[in-house]
């Protein structure tokens, strides 16, 4: 089994423009998808994130940590939420990513976690 990060990429402005009833449908669809991940036994963790404007970046590489307001990258699209799933291979991960993307109506990036180092 391998763990994959399914991250939802979206645009805050576009999300803000979604009418409330559509948003309700989306929440229901994502809730159903979460339940499916859990009943399939592939769920590790997942959750929605607050808007990217609430992000703070910490750079601890120097002598003193430097704290700055805002997301790491100045882009229009940010991670809006994510799931971590545990499945046998990429085909399975892509299948869940497609279902997750449909549920939240956003693009989902699939990234494998590094394999556990051998004991």
């Amino acid at each position, binding site marked *: 089994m*391998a763990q994959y990060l399914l991250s939802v990429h979206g645009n805050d402005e576009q999300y803000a423009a979604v009418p409330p009833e559509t948003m309700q449908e989306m929440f229901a669809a994502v809730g159903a998808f979460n339940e499916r991940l859990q009943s399939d036994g592939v769920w590790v963790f997942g959750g929605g994130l607050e808007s990217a404007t609430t992000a703070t970046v910490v750079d601890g590489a120097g002598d003193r940590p430097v704290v700055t307001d805002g997301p790491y990258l100045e882009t229009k699209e940010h991670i809006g939420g994510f799931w971590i799933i545990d499945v*046998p*291979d*990429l*085909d399975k991960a*892509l299948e869940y990513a497609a279902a997750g993307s449909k549920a939240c109506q956003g693009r989902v990036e*699939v990234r*494998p976690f*590094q394999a556990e180092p*051998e*004991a």
Partner: protein
Amino acid sequence: MPTAGAASSTTAEVERVFREEYGRLIASLVRRFGDIDIAEEAAGEALVAALEKWPGSGVPPNPGGWLTTTAGNRAIDRLRRENQRDAKHRAAAMLHDDTPHEPTGPVEDDRLRLIFTCCHPALAPEARIALTLRLLGGLTVAEIAQAFLVPETTMAQRMTRAKKKIAGARIPYRVPSAEDLPDRLDAVLAVLFLVFNEGYLSTGPGDAVRAELTGEAIRLARVLHRLLPDEPEVTGLLALLVLTEARREARVRDGVLVSLAEQDRGGWDRRLVAEGHALVRECLARNRPGRYQLLAAINAVHTDAPTAADTDWSQVVALYDRLLTIDPSPIVRLNRAVAVAELDGAEVALAEVDRLVAATPALASYHAFHVTRAELLRRLARSAEAREAYDAALAATDNTAERAYLTRRRGELVVDERPG
């Protein structure tokens, strides 16, 4: 089996056998060891062993089996040396997996498995084709780079990146499920077509025609056709490949390429022609045309004509017009221009070809573009320009038979010019 006299010819023989067996070897090693890099390294070591051993002992009766066994042993040795608990555990398990080498049967599926892994949609399209040519076709990185008109280092990086992604993202090694199969097919078909083309007009300076590659593409296309009898494009591709393969023997005479018009049609493989025509009829009955089906239909028109003069060129142009609605590429337009020359004359065709290169300057590095121009200029008796075009075509191809043909055609121009 007799050994070749000179050591150099034995080396060539070993390399030929190795290349012929490469796809089968890699596919079975990947299945056994679950890792492409291990498979490639072990295959490379088996080649070194063969180069040491075969010149003295001769090529063994079942060279593929010898290479598979040797490569398997080398891979196990390597895993043991790495001395990791997991590796040891795997190696121990593998010792019991003495899958015998079989030329047919499950081995075919191994290669099919590998082709679907190489053509996975999570890989960049150009990487899919490159990986398949390398791992199944046994082409070198240099040959693939040439086929794609990119520098060798670029191609090597592309391949390394793709293999890392297969391992890191866990792209599975299997034939996709029935529901995913149609979607995954397009890339596989494109790959088989390119593998065939590489064999049919080899880019390298070695053998002009590499029957092991055309044969390999057809073999894999047949497997796909058996697996997916109702996918019209699979049928179309197989039809296209067998109709092209049918002309292979007549296409090179004494090391010189023979153009379609000059080919001895009695030398065509009638069995393959009949098979191809039956497949094209199957496609027509289904009436869901696609790129490969249309190319096959064009080839069916050619192979249907008892002589070149009997070719139904209006039908050929009509089929190219349909093809352009699906695939409006400069290569299709170039091929259409060749048919237009037969129908409307060389002048009209040349104007079209010159418009094409103005719109797509990259065509100028494509040898077939210069060949087409040279032939059209020759017909228009513009010998000096034709000679330049033959020179440009010669500069753009390493294929020995094509070079011989182009040199001959260019030479004939000089004679034509003397009276003037």
